[in-house]
């Protein structure tokens, strides 16, 4: 144990020190708890290592990993169409990732973005079904409002058990994901099913007044602006408001924050409302901007991917934009390898292993290798 530099360090001895006296060279692995901020390149290294690991699985399947990765990359970033598709996928990731990042700031582990997105999409669709003849402006505003409200409500359902009943929010938010997906199944197979849809589960197509404007002839819709505006607001709020300061304080030291008189329960509820609301916007943007109707599988796991997006960005707003585009590309790339007979779950596998390497990398960085000459006593 060394406290000489005021650091709280503990040592793991790699090499057993021999039991005879004399000067010996020893190699020690020391844990340095003060190295909390890992460098900017750990995400990059973890992505590379994850690519290498998954290359093994792809090779085991009899495919050439280089070829597969090239195919994925070309599919996602190589063409103008691929690039806009990547951006389309990045929109829900950015919005959900931002919501998750807000919650993670104070260690509220929201993994319910998937469900919050789903109920947001359902609420937006409810507007098109129950108020079909509104003007474009009113219809879209109401859809947005309903999407936010539904997502926030779903977030609240996670927050209340946590604050008032001490229930782990991980379990609650995940259970609510399954509930939301079952509710989605119910409405698309039941009351909202399109009578002219040839018995295919899904709501009627949205009218053009109920669809978000798109860029030119691409599928890239105005939801991108929602995401970017939300990122700017998030940055300003965290950086310059009292609320943001309190959030940062809770994140840094919850015990100190409580002694300072910060109402942590209230913050958990606010944070979950925001988190759910942002995922709700993502859901609204998906139905209104991309699919133009409510159907099964509205989200190919955006809510889960967004967890990695937020973690990879280290909750940094600018980083969120970069990582959500990257992961949007990963999803599109996953689709493009289906043409050569590989399942798109390759991208899910990559996402999981990126997260593994990332959390391992952040911790490995805290260990230092220390060489020292030690004087040994008590020989025989």
């Amino acid at each position, binding site marked *: *144990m060394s406290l000489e530099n005021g650091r*709280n360090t*503990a*040592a793991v001895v790699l090499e057993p020190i021999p039991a005879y006296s004399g000067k010996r060279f020893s190699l020690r692995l020391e*844990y340095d*708890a003060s190295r909390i901020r890992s460098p900017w390149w750990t995400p990059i290294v973890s992505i590379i290592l994850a690519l290498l690991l998954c290359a093994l*699985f792809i090779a085991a399947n009899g495919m050439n990993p280089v070829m597969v990765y090239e195919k994925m990359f070309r599919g996602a970033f190589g063409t103008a169409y691929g690039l806009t598709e990547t951006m389309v996928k990045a929109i829900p990731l950015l919005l959900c990732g931002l919501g998750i990042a807000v919650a993670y700031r104070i260690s509220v*582990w929201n*993994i319910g973005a998937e469900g919050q997105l789903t109920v947001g999409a359902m609420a937006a669709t409810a507007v098109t079904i129950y108020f079909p003849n509104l003007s474009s402006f009113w219809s879209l505003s109401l859809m947005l409002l309903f999407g936010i409200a539904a997502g926030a409500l779903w977030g609240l359902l996670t927050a209340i*058990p946590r604050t008032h*009943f*001490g*229930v*782990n929010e*991980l*379990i*609650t938010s*995940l*259970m*609510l*994901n*399954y*509930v939301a997906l*079952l*509710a989605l*199944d*119910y409405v698309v*197979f*039941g009351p909202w099913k399109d009578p002219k849809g040839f018995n295919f589960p899904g709501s009627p197509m949205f009218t053009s007044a109920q669809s978000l404007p798109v860029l030119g002839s691409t599928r890239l819709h105005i939801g991108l602006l929602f995401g970017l505006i939300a990122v700017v607001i998030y940055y300003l709020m965290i950086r310059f408001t009292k609320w943001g300061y309190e959030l940062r304080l809770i994140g840094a030291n919850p015990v100190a924050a409580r002694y300072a008189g910060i109402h942590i329960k209230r913050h958990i509820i606010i944070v979950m409302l925001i988190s759910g609301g942002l995922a709700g916007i993502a859901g609204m943007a998906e139905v209104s901007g991309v699919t133009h109707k409510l159907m099964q599988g509205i989200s190919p796991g955006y809510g*889960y991917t967004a*967890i*990695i997006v937020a*973690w990879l960005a280290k909750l940094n707003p600018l980083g969120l934009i970069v990582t959500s585009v990257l992961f949007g590309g990963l999803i599109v790339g996953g689709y493009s390898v289906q043409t050569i007979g590989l*399942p798109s*779950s*390759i*991208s*899910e*596998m*990559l*996402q*999981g*292993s990126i*997260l*593994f390497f990332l*959390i*391992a990398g*952040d*911790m*490995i960085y*805290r*260990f230092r290798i220390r060489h020292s000459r030690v004087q040994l006593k008590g020989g025989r």
Partner: protein
Amino acid sequence: MDFTTQLLIAAISAGTPLLLATLGGILNERAGIIQLGAEGLMLMGAVTTCIVYIRSGNLLLALLATVTITAVLGLLHSFLCVTLRANQTMSGLAMTLFGSGLSAYLGKPISGIPLPGTSPKLHLVWLENVPVIGKIFGNMDYLTWFSLLLVLALHLLIHRTSWGLHLRAVGDSPATADVMGIRVQLIRYSYVIIGAALIGLAGADMVLAYAPTWNEGLTAGRGWIAVGLVIFARWNPLRALFCAYFFGALDSLGFRIQLLGSAVPPYFLKMIPYLVTILVLMYLGYRNRNKPSGTPESLGVPYIREQRF
């Protein structure tokens, strides 16, 4: 057979995977390591069983492979959480994401192919002739019997042996245990690995006794329900038995109500286990608000020798 007996049989069959996963979770968390990767481990267990069983036709080999693969994943989790002291929540989430992605990838070629057989039933003639319970026991396969024996064994292990004392000490106060000469890291590693293997067996039981073919995302959140059940059972194997069968009953009750021609859409019946998990945890939280919950005291806190908190 009357409705109750059928329900009990169904509850046991649906409850066994939950029970195995819950027992695995209890072992993990008694040692102080949170295991949120249960869903991913169950999926990996299920897909490994399917692949090996379909390719080799040998059930024993399939179970052996399942235990090995999930134990390796448990080793990975314990390396991250014990040696590297990584965030246990994040490591569990990564396990779930990686497990569901990898299982979908590996399982694609065998998706929808029926398994060559189910888990064989253990026929105990003397027990089957007992009037009411005979029918129930007659329907139990080897894995179910194994899970029952495991409940008893783990109960005795945790509460009646010195190994169990060491396990509890490591979960409650690793620093004290360390001072007493108990090898904290070794114990944490072993129980996380054994726990992961049990959760893998739960996945195997899912495909062998419950759903006879592999489908992507086959466990449908049962791993997460098991994570909830660990809390519900208050880290106690005997309670885990009742909790798992209770949830097994809920699971199959929905299905049975549907068969009886109920007007309630099946989607709402399928929601029951998820909603009940939340409500039960809320009730427990409310009831135990001023009492110790039975949580191992150092759950989720990485142990660093010589560090003061």
